[in-house]
Structures are given as structure tokens and as C-alpha cells.
């Protein structure tokens, strides 16, 4: 099965929030709700070894997606292309998937009273177009594609870097597909971060 996801090159990301805005506009995400959010991690460390970087976040397209396994109605499901999606017509609004998501990147649609999330812009990719966040990225930091296809944009970007420079958010058995590229030029990768209160974008690392 394909492992379609977004790859973000943090060496390039400027933290402009353009991806977040493009996502909201393309998908009609309501005010106060998000399918994509850019956090600013840090600054952490001690001068001169300090780290501060923008962290665009969205559904991480986990291979062992807890949201899919806990959903009582099958509203959270994986389609034939391996993309984790929500069938809003089946959602009963139990929010169990929101509790089970290790990253808290699901959104509550207050008007429709159901859960929703990043769809990887399936309505665009099915027509060989790019997801809105990828297309709009001014820094060329976002890549879409199948990690198992060496010719995909995502795989080709990852192939340019050493394994040590490719990261995921903390994996607790869910195997997130989304990859973040970050070299020592930017600083030290923080695999678990915590926002400093909604709706602020500042985030700090969580010490284990």
C-alpha cells in the first residue's frame, strides 16, 4: 500500500504560515479551526548552541493509525491509496479519534458536529495536482508523494539527505509517515513539543 504523505524540509521553511492559510482557503476550514498549523519551536539551548525553527504540522498519516483502529463506526478509515481520511457522514462525534491521535492534529467541525482533518487534498491529487499547502509553499519546503515510490517528489527530496537528518514526530508505535528534514545548520531536532496554549503558535520541547 502506498505511503502518501507530506515531507517538509525545515532547512528551507521560513515559517511564513502560507501553508496554513492555503489549507484553510482550499478546504473552507472555519475560523478558529485548523487542518494544518505552523508552530515555532524554541528558542532552546544555550548561546551559541541554540535552536529555533518553524514546525508545520498536520495529520502525520500514521501507518498504524490509532484514530482508525479506535473509531467505532469506521468513519476514520484508510483509503485505497493509504491515506487516512474521515467519512463525515459516518462520524457520530464521540471524539475518540481525537483522544487517540498522538499529535492532537484532528479538528472539530463545530457547524457539522463531526471530526475532520487534513485530507492531503485528495480532490486535487486525484487530478494530478499538488496539495494546496505544497503548491503555495513560497520557500519550496513542502513535498508530496509516496515514500515507497523513489520517483515521487517526497522520496527524491529525502534521498538528498542522510538518515540522521530525517526525522519524525515522536513515534509511540503509530509509525508516522510524515518526514521532517532538518540538518545541524538549523539546530537540534525536538521530537516532542508542546504549544504554549491555543491559539498561540509558540511551542517548546518537552523533556522526557
Amino acid at each position, binding site marked *: 500500500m502506498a505511503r502518501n504523505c507530506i515531507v517538509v524540509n525545515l532547512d528551507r521553511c521560513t515559517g511564513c504560515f502560507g501553508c496554513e492559510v492555503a489549507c484553510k482557503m482550499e478546504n473552507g476550514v472555519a475560523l478558529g479551526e*485548523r487542518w494544518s*498549523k505552523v*508552530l515555532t519551536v524554541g528558542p532552546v539551548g544555550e548561546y551559541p548552541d541554540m535552536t529555533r525553527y518553524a514546525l508545520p*504540522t498536520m495529520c502525520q498519516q500514521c501507518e498504524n493509525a*490509532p484514530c482508525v*483502529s*479506535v*473509531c*467505532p*463506526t*469506521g*468513519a476514520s478509515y484508510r483509503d485505497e491509496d493509504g491515506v487516512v481520511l474521515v467519512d463525515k*457522514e*459516518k*462520524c*457520530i*462525534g*464521540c*471524539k*475518540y479519534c*481525537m*483522544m*487517540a*491521535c*498522538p*499529535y*492532537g*492534529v*484532528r*479538528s*472539530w467541525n463545530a457547524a457539522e*458536529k*463531526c471530526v475532520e482533518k487534513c485530507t492531503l487534498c485528495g480532490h486535487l491529487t486525484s487530478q494530478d495536482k499538488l496539495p494546496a499547502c505544497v503548491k503555495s509553499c513560497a520557500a519550496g519546503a513542502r513535498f508530496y508523494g509516496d515514500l515507497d515510490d523513489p520517483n515521487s517528489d517526497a522520496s527524491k527530496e529525502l534521498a538528498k539527505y542522510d538518515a540522521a537528518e530525517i526525522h519524525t*514526530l*515522536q513515534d*509511540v*508505535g*503509530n509509525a508516522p509517515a510524515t518526514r521532517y528534514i532538518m540538518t545541524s545548520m538549523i539546530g537540534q531536532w525536538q521530537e*516532542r*513539543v*508542546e*504549544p504554549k*496554549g*491555543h*491559539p*498561540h503558535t509558540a*511551542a517548546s520541547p*518537552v523533556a522526557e
Partner: protein
Amino acid sequence: MEIQWSLVLFTALSGAGAWLVACAGLDAFRGLARKTVVPAVICGIALIIVGGIASATHLSHVDRIMAVLAHPAPGIFLEALLLGIDVVVAAAFLVLYKREASAGALKVLGVVAVAMAAIFSYSCGSSYMMASQLAWNTVALPLGYLGGAMASGTALWYVLCAVRREEAQALSFAALETLVGSVAALVTALVYGAASGVMGGDASVLFWLGVVICGGVAPLACAVTGLKKTEGALPLAVVAAAGALIGSVAYRVLMWTASVALMSLFGVGI
């Protein structure tokens, strides 16, 4: 996380109801509280059903609930299934008891009722064990659900035995059952408190006062007193039941207030 009162009431009431039915089932072996069995089973079924209805009130689209049948997955489906089975077991026990069925049949259903109470109340807590919620992802959490439900159900049985003016031997045995239930609540709550870290910090007052003292120590003290003091058992039983129910609710409230998400990147409250 916000307190989900619908879910708090669901597991607290349905769990207590299941254990109330279990106590009635256990009486099939002793035959001490014959005046109490029927009202206890009826109350138990009512509590299980009221709890089940309470759980549905937190859904935003109850109209789509039948979709659950199309996707039998762990968690909510299992809880609903076990709840239904428990009601069927209780109803079957009630019918057989009213029709004065053989002692063997009643004993078999009594054992099933006890097993169902344990499985159901444990399962209600095990649904919350998930890697994304650090304070929930321990087997101690569902054990605490089981302990709290056991204390509530046995204490309610004690109350009904006292209300129905059962003989001293029946009251003494009901106190013993309450003692076992309250010890289970106390031990499992302490284990969860240690495992999840809620013993200290912001939640410590609710934990020690609500869960430990009200939910464990109070019913335990009443039960110990009631073992020998069968005269005026009703006040003891009422205090035990009130304490156990408060403790059971407090434990579930604590679970929501003390939850620690691995990451909550969007900061969306649930």
C-alpha cells in the same frame, strides 16, 4: 481535557448496576437475602440502562449510532456489546428466579453475572488505554474502573438488604461483600494514583479526598463496622454507598482532569 460527564456517569452507573446484579447472582449460592434479589436485579438493570443512555448523550450524531454495528472494533463497540449481554444475563436471572428455577441454573447464571460485572467494568476503563494519553496508558486505569464499580455495586446491595430488613446473617454477608468491594476500590485507586502520578500535583486533593477517602476508606469503615453490628445497618450501608459512588465518580473525573497528551499540537480541547 474537559470532564465528559456523560461518560463519567455511564461507567459509574452501569458499573454499579452490573455489580449489583452480580451480588444478587452470588446470593444464589447462599440464599441469605431472598427478599432483596428481585429488587436488586431490577435496580441493577435500570442502572445499566440509565448509564448506557447517559453515554449516548455525549454523541453529536446519535442518529448514526447503528453504524457501530458495521464496524466491530475494540472500545465503544465492546462496551455496548458487554452492556447488552449484561442486561440479558440479568433479565434471564430474574425470570428464572421468579419462576423458581433449579438451584443449579441460578448458580450458573450467578457465576455468569459476577464474571460479566468484572469484564464489563474493566472493559469500560480499558477503552481509554491509548499511547497518546500518558496518564491513561496503564492497566491500573481499568483496574480502578473495576474497583470503583465493585465498591458501588456491593454497597448498593448492602443498602437494599438493609431496606428489605434481611436477617442478621444476610446483612453481615452484605457488609463482607462491601468490604471486599471497598478494598478493591482502595487498592486499585492507589495503584493507579502511583502509576499515573495523580497522587501529587494539582489533582491530589480530588484523588485523596474524593477517590481514596470517600471511595475507599469510608465504605471500608462502614463495612467493617457492619460485619458485627447488624442492628441499624441502614445508615452504615447508605454512607458506604454514598462514599463508594462519590469515589467512583471522582475517579472518573480525575481521569479527565489529569490527562496528559503526548502532544496536542492544535491545542484543541476535547
